[in-house]
Structures are given as structure tokens and as C-alpha cells.
């Protein structure tokens, strides 16, 4: 179950984004992490990224994953997300788990694909620090000039959301230590 029901102020710069801390309660968190640890992950690599990805989590029936899918995507929460961002109503989510190990990265991109309204990422790596790498780095892009605005450490049990647009440039910094950066990531669709 969700531990937090409130979405505090969405920051507008460089594009609308928000961090919801302590998103899941402890017992759900344990169950979800156990369930994710039991999944198979395929190594994915391109010029843009290097990471391990699960299958689409909306395609599997697992008690803990079902709870997580509700916590992230039930109607009550979708309405809160839409209200917080001032977006049109959100009809559905997709979700997959990703593991970034030593040397993995995701270079700058804006996530723009049709019908993606809000991107989210639930972070599930205990005691992660800046030195370990894996921060979510967000950019302000004006024409072709870009400036790194913030480097958000993916704190355990924090849910980061941002509005997808031509401005929503971001990247995942390279993992610099021998850790496994685990996230559940996806998009709210219109």
C-alpha cells in the first residue's frame, strides 16, 4: 500500500517535476523488492544506454506486483498525479523494472513518445549515495544549449515524476561503484 497520499509542490524549472518520498509502506516495499529480485532481466545496450530490463510488469500476475501496479496506477493516484501536474486525465500506466550495474548509464533524451504524459521512476536501492553514480540528472535545454540543472540522488523508496515534453531532457549518470540500482519505471498515458 502507499504510505504517502500527498504530492507536494511540483517544481516548474526546468520542466515540471516532483519527488515523492516514502512512497510505499514498509511491508509492501519488502514484498515488491522480493518479487523484483525473482524476475529475469535482459541486458540492453545501444549507443544511448546500457542496463538490464525486466519484461513489461503489466503483463504478469504476481501478488506483490499487482499491489505495486495499483499503488502507482489506481484511479485515485492517477487523479492526484494529473491534478499535481495540471495535466489532462491519465488513463493507464506501463511499468518495467530496470537494474543499472557498474558502468551502466542512460544518456540524455526527452522520453517523448506519443501518449506519454508523465514519466515516473520508483527507486528501490537502499543507501545509495552520489559517489555511487546513478543520479537522475535533469537539463535545461534552450535551442541546442543545455545546462545541467539538478542531479537527483535516487533515494530509497522515492518516486520521481516529471512531465514529458520537448523540454524534459534527462539522463541517468554512469554507475561508478559495484551496486545494483533498481527502479520501477514507466509512464502515465493520456
Amino acid at each position, binding site marked *: 500500500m502507499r504510505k504517502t497520499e500527498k504530492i507536494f509542490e511540483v517544481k516548474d524549472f526546468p520542466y515540471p517535476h516532483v519527488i515523492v518520498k516514502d512512497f510505499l509502506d514498509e511491508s509492501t516495499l519488502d514484498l515488491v523488492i522480493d518479487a523484483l529480485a525473482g524476475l529475469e532481466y535482459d541486458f540492453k545496450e545501444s549507443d544511448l544506454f546500457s542496463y538490464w530490463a525486466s519484461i513489461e510488469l503489466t503483463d504478469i500476475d504476481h501478488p506483490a506486483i499487482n499491489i505495486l501496479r495499483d499503488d502507482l496506477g489506481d484511479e485515485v493516484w492517477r487523479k492526484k498525479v494529473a491534478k499535481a501536474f495540471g495535466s489532462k486525465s491519465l488513463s493507464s500506466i506501463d511499468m518495467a523494472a530496470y537494474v543499472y550495474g557498474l558502468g551502466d548509464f542512460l*544518456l540524455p533524451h526527452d522520453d517523448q513518445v506519443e501518449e506519454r504524459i508523465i514519466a515516473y521512476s520508483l527507486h528501490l536501492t537502499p543507501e545509495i549515495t552520489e559517489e555511487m553514480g546513478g543520479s537522475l540528472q535533469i537539463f535545461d535545454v534552450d535551442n541546442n544549449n543545455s545546462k545541467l540543472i539538478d542531479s537527483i540522488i535516487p533515494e530509497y523508496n522515492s518516486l520521481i515524476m516529471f512531465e514529458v515534453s520537448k523540454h524534459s*531532457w534527462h539522463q541517468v549518470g*554512469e554507475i561508478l561503484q559495484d551496486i545494483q540500482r533498481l527502479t520501477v519505471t514507466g509512464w502515465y498515458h493520456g
Partner: protein
Amino acid sequence: MADINFYYLESATLSNLNRIFSSADIPFIRLSKFLNEAPKSVEPKLSSEEKIGYYHRKIGNALLEDFWQSSDFNVFLRKATGLKPRFRESNHISYSPGDYSLLHMDESEPSRLLVVYDLTKEWKHEWGGYDLYTSPDKDPLVCNRDFGSLMIVKLAPGDLSCTRYVSLKSQFSAHIDCITYDLD
């Protein structure tokens, strides 16, 4: 002016290179120790070049700018590839830790011949920084860094190239002279 390793100027070698180049899935040859004497120091004036989502690197005049336009090299290129390349531009490009280029940066490019002369010293494969070429329905071509090697690759419209992200753990920068020749 740089001198081409005499081995690569022998007619038997050129004939072999032409055959290998023409038969490759993505036409390509790689020639180690291409010059009799590789430039010893790499200190060109470079400026940052960034287009987010495309590339992040440093760029300046090619170290061997004159050589890449010389008749000696042009004759060699014609014999080795069987093509009639026309010089377009040459640059020295440096990829430092965190730098990269992405495949779609040249998606509107016409047919071209790319020549890359590698000036990267003391490189480790795990630092990335290798060159990648893709062509629809063909296996991608990966070219690792190798000091003193010359790589020649023919790319058709729709074929793409990039230099892989360089790890923040890299202790050095990758340095290349990158030359583009137009093709008919």
C-alpha cells in the same frame, strides 16, 4: 608531411585491400601502423561541441589536415577502395570521460567515405569510446581504439555512425582525426 607505411603502397597489398573492402558487409578496412611515424604528441586547439541528444565532445582542426587532402593519400584511397572520394572535411575530435556521439547524428547524410586515424594512447576497452557503424539489415561494425590505425568505412544513406560513451572512469581521452569524403 606524413608518410604512408610502404607495405600499404605495394600493388599486391592494395589489390588485397580492395578485395577485402569490397566484400565486407559494411565496406571497411582497418590498417594498423598506417604511417611510418605516427604523430607523437596530440595538443591541437579544441573547442567544446555539444548538441544534447546528439554529441558531447571537443573538436578542432585535424592534426594531419594537409595530409588528408594530399594527392598521395587520395591516390592511396582510390586504389584501396576502388572509389573516387572527394575530400569534404577533416577534424580532430576528442572524447573525454562522459563524452559521446549518438547514431542518429548523421541520419540525413548522403553516401560518404569516412576515414578515422586513431591517435588514442593507452586505452582500455571497458572505457568505451569505440566507433560503431550500423546499416539496416546488417550486423553492426565495432572498431576499437588502436593507436596508429587507419579505418576506412563506406556508408550509404541511412547508414549511421557514432562513438560510444566514454566512461567517467577513463583515465585518458580518445583522440581521432576524422575525415569525410563525398561519394557519387
